[in-house]
């Protein structure tokens, strides 16, 4: 979008003013005030909180609660935000070699309901260790006809090609059309 070259492997969503969207995965102890303590450093360091996915039902192997936070900030602020989280005693989960994951959106088109959408999403999540962040479904002709779904996934950095391959093969089995995002260049 701007003239800044996109660093390889850094595929956060660029929006106006060079602000990017990042997903941070945290582990919180199940105690009052923990979530607030996790969110304050984000705002204090110039991050814009976009969404919080608080998986209360899930427990990490260490007995903590996993939380995914989407935030927007200029790329040079991101390291400060992660450092501030750690200073506040928040456990920032590492994703592969990276501290944070990428986010990708795809649109699926086809007989989504008849081909069991939840099974489709589970297959994508299980085979790629991706997490579905949100889902938006549009079935203007009713659920028996062609419908579209936009799926936002959190994935480990640098794994996008593997994730797309899985999505393609799952979709091929169910005769779905996949509209992938264009990740190369500064599209």
């Amino acid at each position, binding site marked *: *979008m701007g*003239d800044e070259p996109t660093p390889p492997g850094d595929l956060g969503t660029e929006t106006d003013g060079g602000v990017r969207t990042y997903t941070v995965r945290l582990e919180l102890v199940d105690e009052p005030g923990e979530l607030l303590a996790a969110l304050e450093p984000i705002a204090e360091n110039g991050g814009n909180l976009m969404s919080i996915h608080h998986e209360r039902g899930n427990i990490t192997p260490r007995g903590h609660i996993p939380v995914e936070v989407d935030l927007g900030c200029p790329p040079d602020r991101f390291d400060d935000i992660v450092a501030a989280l750690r200073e506040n005693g928040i456990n920032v989960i590492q994703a592969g070699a990276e501290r944070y994951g990428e986010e990708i959106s795809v649109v699926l088109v086809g007989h989504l309901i008849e081909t069991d959408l939840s099974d489709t999403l589970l297959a994508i999540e299980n085979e790629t260790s991706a997490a579905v962040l949100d889902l938006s479904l*549009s079935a203007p002709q009713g659920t028996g006809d062609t419908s*579209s779904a936009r799926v*936002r996934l959190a994935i480990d950095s640098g794994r996008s090609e593997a994730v797309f391959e899985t999505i393609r093969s799952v979709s091929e089995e169910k005769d779905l059309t996949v*509209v992938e995002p*264009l990740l*190369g*260049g500064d*599209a």
Partner: protein
Amino acid sequence: MRLAILGAGDVGRSVADLAGEYGHEVVALADSTNAVIDDDGIDVEGALQRKRSGEPVGVDDPDDVFEGEYDVLVEATPTTLGDAEPGFSHVERALEADRHVVLANKGPVAERYDELRALEDESAGSIRFEATVGGAIPVLSTIEDETPQAVTAVRGVLNGTANFILTRMAAEGLDYDHVLAEAQDLGVAEADPTFDVDGTDAALKFVILANVLSDGGFALEDADVEGIQNIPGSALNLAAEDGRTIRLIGEATREGVRVAPRLVPQNGPLAVTGTRNIVQIETRHAGSLHSSGRGAGGPETATAVLSDVSRLADR
């Protein structure tokens, strides 16, 4: 330069019409059945007038064009796939006679690039084909100036019809069939729009780009191609909720060619609207370059042909 123009469709006629303005002379103009040939320069206005009123363009045999006194053969016959004939043979005959060739016909450059380059190596003439990719937009000359080795990828929208359909679907919330019918009424889509909407036309252009980047080795069958026929209005609406839209995007790298509907930022450079085309040239040393403009049309494409002719004249 003295031009012999094969093909009297929109592009061939526009080249004939504009050649004088660019300082060149037309010595032959031929369609598939008739030709007008004059080594001292044909009466372009008269020939175009005859063509417009449905008469033969001239009384000469198209085959005799190759015997005439021309410097550059302009190959503007319709694009054909596979063996890319008769375009390929036209180029072959001109190169064997040591003449230059400028192509607006994508077939030979997409399907038989290596053979064309081999013929060129044996000839005193050269081939150029700016008009085959992106109409009026200077794509190949930009890559040539950057040097192909320094270009890592070319991405973009190179089919105006598909882009028009996706733009209208997104703007009006209409479905594919409805917008396609509208595009046909407006003359934006042809009666048989198959090659535009199934991605073939865009794929040919990106195959040509991959050939330029890799110095050959690609044909249409090597491209991974998906069209826009399966994209419903609801998919565009969902994309818009997320600040994105869907465009038929082509990508050419040294690894291969891919054309498919892709999610791109709604306000990003690749989300051009209407019949507009855009290419993004990713370079090693100079970041990304974007050129956008009219990717089709007679006069637009003719300007690309004539700029190739001028580059040949400058050698």
